């Protein structure tokens, strides 16, 4: 994930970054700059970068989920004369519900706890513009050596993730019934 953060900084770089190449091609020259070093775009570059990083994981889980859908259900819908839209939303999407729940729960949890990516690409900067809870906890611990504040930040982070965790555990427990 450190590599993920470096790749984000690399892709949003003024000269080297693919993102800025496309922005220039589209004529948005005023947007073509090193996104990670400006306060107004640092967080946005991390958000877009996380979306990019998580797409791989999501696609893997969804393709496994799609492969496990029985073909007969789709064939039956075709025989019944359902069009593509109906098959997609009435047959395929409902059967993917468990995968969707897993993906949503895991991405929310991971992105709340995001640390490596921020550390590698912006260090929470510039001027705290892209600071996240996990990095704040680390800053208090390692840089300021203020352990009570650090523990407080960690606890807040845990409390923030708790509703998702409880929801996820309930899904797991309901899954088998």
């Amino acid at each position, binding site marked *: *994930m*450190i*590599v993920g953060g*470096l*790749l*984000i*900084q*690399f*892709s949003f*770089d003024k*000269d*080297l970054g*693919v993102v800025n*190449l496309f922005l220039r091609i589209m004529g948005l020259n005023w947007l073509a700059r090193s996104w990670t070093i400006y306060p107004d775009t640092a967080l946005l570059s991390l958000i877009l970068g996380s979306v*990019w990083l998580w*797409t*791989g994981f999501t696609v893997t889980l969804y393709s*496994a989920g799609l492969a496990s859908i029985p073909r007969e259900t*789709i*064939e039956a819908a*075709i*025989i019944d004369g359902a069009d*593509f839209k109906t*098959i*997609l939303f009435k047959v395929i999407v409902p059967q993917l519900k*468990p995968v969707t729940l*897993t993906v949503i729960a895991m991405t929310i*949890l991971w992105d709340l*706890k995001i*640390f*490596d990516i921020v*550390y*590698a690409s912006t260090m929470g900067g510039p001027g705290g513009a892209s600071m996240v*809870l*996990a990095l704040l*906890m*680390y800053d208090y*611990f*390692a840089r300021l050596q203020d*352990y009570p504040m*650090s*523990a407080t*930040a*960690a*606890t807040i*982070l*845990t409390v923030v*993730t708790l509703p*998702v*965790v409880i929801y*996820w*555990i309930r*899904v*797991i*427990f*309901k*899954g*088998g*019934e």
Partner: protein
Amino acid sequence: MRKRILSVPRGGLLGSPLKWLIANVIAWAIGILWILPFIGIIMTSIRPFSEVVAGWWRIHPFTLTLKNYIDTLFNPMFSLLRGFINSLIIAVPSTIIPVMLAALGAYAFARFSFPLKNYLFITMLFLMAVPQQMTIIPIFFMLNNMRLLNTYLGLILVHSSWGIPWITFFLRNYFLLLPKELEEIARVDGATNKQIFFKVVLPLSLPGIVSASVLQFAWVWNDFFFALMLIFDPDKMVITQMLPRLKGQYQVDWGLLSAGSVLAMLMPLIVYAVFNKYYIGGFRGMAMKR
């Protein structure tokens, strides 16, 4: 005639071949866009930095060189070769220890009933989801008191215990999917629980165990936070810890950094590739099932 109706029409669910073509073009475009940053980092790592300063996609002067790799591997300040070896020293035991322990626990959760089983199971699920940041302060002071701070052993122990809950959950789901009959036959033949576990269950669940090991190895290899907090000695640092340090103070040296990133990504990829055929069926353990 019947067969024609039943089969999905040419062009898949989309109907006409034209729609099929458009869908494929869009899918390929998204796929290529997604992979572009990886291509970029590889292109930057195998060429001299002077060629790529204006963008790695300019391929007119194209000189293939391994200079960036040699420079990062034998960097006098942060030798990535050392980091690579340290990462291996940490990751291999941190994979073997928790998988062995978790397999025993997972079998108990899958097949036996004992007091407080459900509560223990829920506790384990909570432990899976606790942020690393929540645990690190007590761990830090505990390791400090045990004189294990800044040692390989300390980090290995932390990673092992961190891995046990999710591997237990993963292997328990896998064991639940195994047919019970084989174990029952063995029991009728007079095998003890121990014999059943080691002679029947473990060989049957090899794909599950390999998948858990591969995932745990990749997790420990990619982990950054625990190493950052618990290892300070440059000689003992793992590869992910060294990468941000290669950045330099003012100007980011993307030549060094890209080569380092590729090296750090290499090991999990090799492990995935080598064990690919073993864990095809192993991800059944991911299925959510009580």
